[in-house]
């Protein structure tokens, strides 16, 4: 049961991953808010399923998860790497979004149909 409690904390932490990025523009504030709403949803979903689900299962043990410790640790390590990859991707996408916001603020993202062609 102790391991379950420990894992419960990890899952709750992992489902709450959206660190509020340092947004430079104020209009991205609503996104910060809705981001936290969604992560709150995901957090409660994860919590809910984690506590309730295990109580409903049969005793007969068919190994639904690799039993050897080597495989188990590989899997947990891969999970950690996977989350790092996701966080990395999210960071990069946020960087892209900031850049897009900056460009749109400057107004230089529109295609200029009046621009003369060089012949």
């Amino acid at each position, binding site marked *: 049961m102790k391991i379950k409690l420990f894992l419960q904390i990890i899952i709750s932490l992992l*489902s709450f991953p959206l660190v509020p990025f340092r947004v430079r523009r104020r209009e991205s504030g609503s996104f910060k808010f809705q981001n936290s709403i969604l992560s709150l949803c*995901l957090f409660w979903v*994860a919590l809910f399923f984690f506590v309730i689900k295990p109580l409903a299962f*049969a005793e007969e043990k068919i190994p*639904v998860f690799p039993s050897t410790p080597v495989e188990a640790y590989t899997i947990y390590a891969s999970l950690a790497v996977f989350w790092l990859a*996701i966080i990395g991707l999210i960071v990069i996408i946020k960087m892209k979004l900031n850049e897009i916001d900056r460009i749109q603020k400057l107004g230089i993202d529109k295609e200029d149909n009046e621009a003369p062609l060089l012949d």
Partner: protein
Amino acid sequence: MIWPKFKDWIDERYDIAELKKLAKSKLIPQHRYDFLYYTGGITLFLFILQFITGMLLAFYYIPHIDFAYESIIDIVTKINMGWFFRSLHHWGAQLCIVFVFIHLFGTLLVKSYRKPRELLWVTGFILLVISIFFGLSGYLMLWDERAFAAVRVATGGAGALPFVGSFIKIFLRGGVDVSGDTLTRFYAFHVSILPLLSLLLIGLHLLFVQYHGMSTPVSLEKKEHKEEPFFPNVFYKDMMIWLVVLGVVVTLAILLPPEIGKKANALAPPPEGIKPEWYFLFLLETLKLFPGIIWGFNGETIAIVCVSIGIFFFFLIPFLDRKSSRGEKSPIFTIIAVVYLLYFITMTLVGFLS
């Protein structure tokens, strides 16, 4: 270097200027409730995840009562990463249905079903029924005690409808009782019929969304609000959220793989404390509220009829809510929406805790 060349190749053959203009013109309003706009996308993402993991599992699953259970044990114990994809399919299904309900109640509460978007509600409602049936049919594939009993109760419940009940029951079961024919039939539903139907309906649903654009809540419609372009701003935000959802599903799949119970036995009693999947609990608890005999009539039939009326009313809300069709505030239907939501949550919790 490759990307511009690729774009030129397409440009020399297809005139997609119109499409590009259309894509660029898609704008998403920004307001207090705009987080609801993402719920549909998350549901779509989870649906796609289910399609992919489902296709993978279909490589090794055998839909015959003598082999179904054993093939799943093979997948979980012998195939490379089989346990993972089965677990992922299970959790993907759970989260998909959660988000279907979140999306449903979200649109209900902000009344985005109102004119001109009634068909979105209709297609969405049918998709809800399809999702639930996906869940039930997929669940039977394991052919364990719990699934067997659950399908018996669910199809038996449908059979309690007056007049059409027995036809529906025999159609779903492929016979009078749940048997190998039921498994084959549910497999056909789960792997072929429902995917094709859902693809068609999701296509229509998305088409209507693009046609009408995003709706804003009635109270905020008249006010000035900012809009941001879907491409690229909201597209990237969608991507971020989908990545997080993927992370959550994978984490759940790894840390909480679903168990495999004992193989189903048609002659054995159901296991102790058996319950259906959580998205059926509110129906079960509602049925339990009705006494066995009401004024001389079969209580179960009356219960099913009442539940059906409730669901039918729910389906008709966009057509009954005249005020919001006119663009006015409709507090009665807000209350109705809140009642439905609270009822659903309460009955589901009651089902869990009892």
